[in-house]
């Protein structure tokens, strides 16, 4: 039985080393600009950082994937093309792309470069995935976080393209790459500028012992004293509707699919992805180490250890999300 590949995030060189040292099979990262979907202040890699990171990872037989997964802006495709060209020149093992034009550029100019389809492309059916394979030679697709395990199994049965799924971390409940909630509130787009709830538009304010989180001109949540807090994203905002305040889209919670390893293996999934390029090296060491131990035990047929990752998760809550759709 082939083992799962463990794909781990890195927002800076120290985080890359933490991921490699903690048992990643591959590390994914982005450049320090709008070409990737975690374009936050102080985060990400210069070209020199990537070269050093590649040397560190390859010396330890770990691969490095470069996420260039936002959509080039009209009339300004150059930063995105240059990112693909530089990733290829420096020896990245794969690039993770979402835009059709950029996939075309990569396929034409770097035929040896392995192409992965980003979750930002929201490819959720076999026909779409086969089209990306046939047109551009895409070898792996990162599935959106809206499919059940049986749906993933059916999709894998209908295509030979490898599938990668998120198993831990922030949970985006929307059609990824097409969500405009944050753009509506801030004027900046997760899909074009790489910033969902940009920090420049986020404020936290104390209110009589409670904590208010604001995005742009909107108060999007009010956490009572002692209540676990969450990210300031509109999809996890608390809204008043029908006379009461509640979470209309999703609660502040994190994905953890460790208990689904046997189901994901049966469904034909090739790689498991941990979310969190914006998180610290301490998070990365803890979560990657926990998943490495779990995958090694699972591959050896031993009981899977279930370390306590509660301290790491948004809102102090974990879920198997759409994989099990417990709410239905």
């Amino acid at each position, binding site marked *: 039985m082939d083992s799962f590949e463990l794909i781990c995030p890195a927002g800076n060189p120290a*985080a890359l080393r933490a991921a490699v040292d903690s048992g990643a099979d591959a590390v994914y990262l982005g450049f320090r600009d709008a070409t990737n979907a975690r374009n936050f202040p102080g985060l990400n890699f210069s070209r020199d950082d990537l070269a050093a990171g590649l040397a560190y990872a390859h010396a330890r037989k770990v691969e490095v994937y470069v996420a260039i997964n936002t959509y080039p802006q009209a009339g300004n495709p150059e930063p995105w093309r240059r990112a693909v060209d530089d990733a290829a020149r420096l020896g990245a093992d794969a690039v993770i792309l979402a835009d059709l034009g950029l996939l075309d550029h990569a396929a034409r100019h770097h035929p040896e470069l392995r192409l992965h389809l980003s979750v930002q492309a929201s490819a959720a059916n076999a026909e779409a995935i086969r089209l990306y394979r046939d047109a551009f030679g895409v070898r792996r697709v990162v599935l959106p976080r809206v499919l059940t395990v049986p749906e993933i199994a059916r999709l894998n049965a209908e295509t030979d393209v490898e599938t990668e799924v998120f198993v831990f971390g922030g949970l985006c409940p929307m059609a990824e790459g097409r969500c405009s909630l944050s753009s509506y509130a801030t004027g900046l787009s997760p899909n074009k500028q790489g910033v969902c709830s940009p920090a420049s538009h986020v404020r*936290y304010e104390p209110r009589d012992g409670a904590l208010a989180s604001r995005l742009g001109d909107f108060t999007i949540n009010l956490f009572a004293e002692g209540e676990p807090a969450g990210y300031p994203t509109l999809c996890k905002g608390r809204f008043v509707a029908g006379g009461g305040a509640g979470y209309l889209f999703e609660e502040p919670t994190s994905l953890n699919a460790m208990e689904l390893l046997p189901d994901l293996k049966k469904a034909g999934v090739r790689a498991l992805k941990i979310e969190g390029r914006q998180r*610290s*090296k301490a998070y990365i060491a803890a*979560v990657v180490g926990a998943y490495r131990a779990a995958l090694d035990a699972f591959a050896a047929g031993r009981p899977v250890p*279930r370390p306590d990752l509660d301290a790491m998760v948004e809102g102090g809550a974990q879920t198997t999300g759409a994989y099990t759709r417990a709410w239905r």
Partner: protein
Amino acid sequence: MNDPTFTTDGRSMDGQVAEDRLRRIEAGMTRLGLGLAHRLGGNRLGREAEGVLFDRLMRSLAERHPRAFAALAELPEARLLIDPQDAPAALMLRVGPSLSLRLCERNEPAEAAVRSPCARLLDLFEGRIDGDALFFRRELVIEGDTALILALRNTLDGEEIDLFAAAAGMAGPLGRALPPARRAAGRLLGLMDGVHRALPEPLERGLAALERRLSGRLSGRLGGA
């Protein structure tokens, strides 16, 4: 099942306990240092001495982490208040071309502020703990310019910072005094671990109280200076 003998990063619990104790001692030493500097700042000469001390610490950190300090100097000028809530004073970090660190009152105006107990801030600064996780648990308070706080957090997290090594790298009497003080604390902890195992319960409780006093967790001991 959770494995009770190992943490998620594979360290043994004994190692983890010793590490936690050392961190408590370091937090106590930091609170003591802030308290002394706070008292020192009561007159003009003291304020000058305090300025020299913090400038040397910043230079020592910058020599060890040039990448991070270059990034902080490139930020637009802004003040970030760092408030160790259980310490007698707070710190004001100025980012931008004239990067500096000074002691201040915790209600001083700033573009942004981060507030948490001293030990948590040390863990955060030295990359042992995840800032988002602290925030989710409401153990870290963030006020003002979130982008500035995020830029600082992400920049520092890219480094492997040892504040005590940097302080020991300063010229002058404090630089010379810190390594022996830290070694002595380490030796004392090792001795305590050995004695803990051999002691009957009432004496062990007494020793635990002494250890709490050393690490500044008894009211007003080290932190209230």
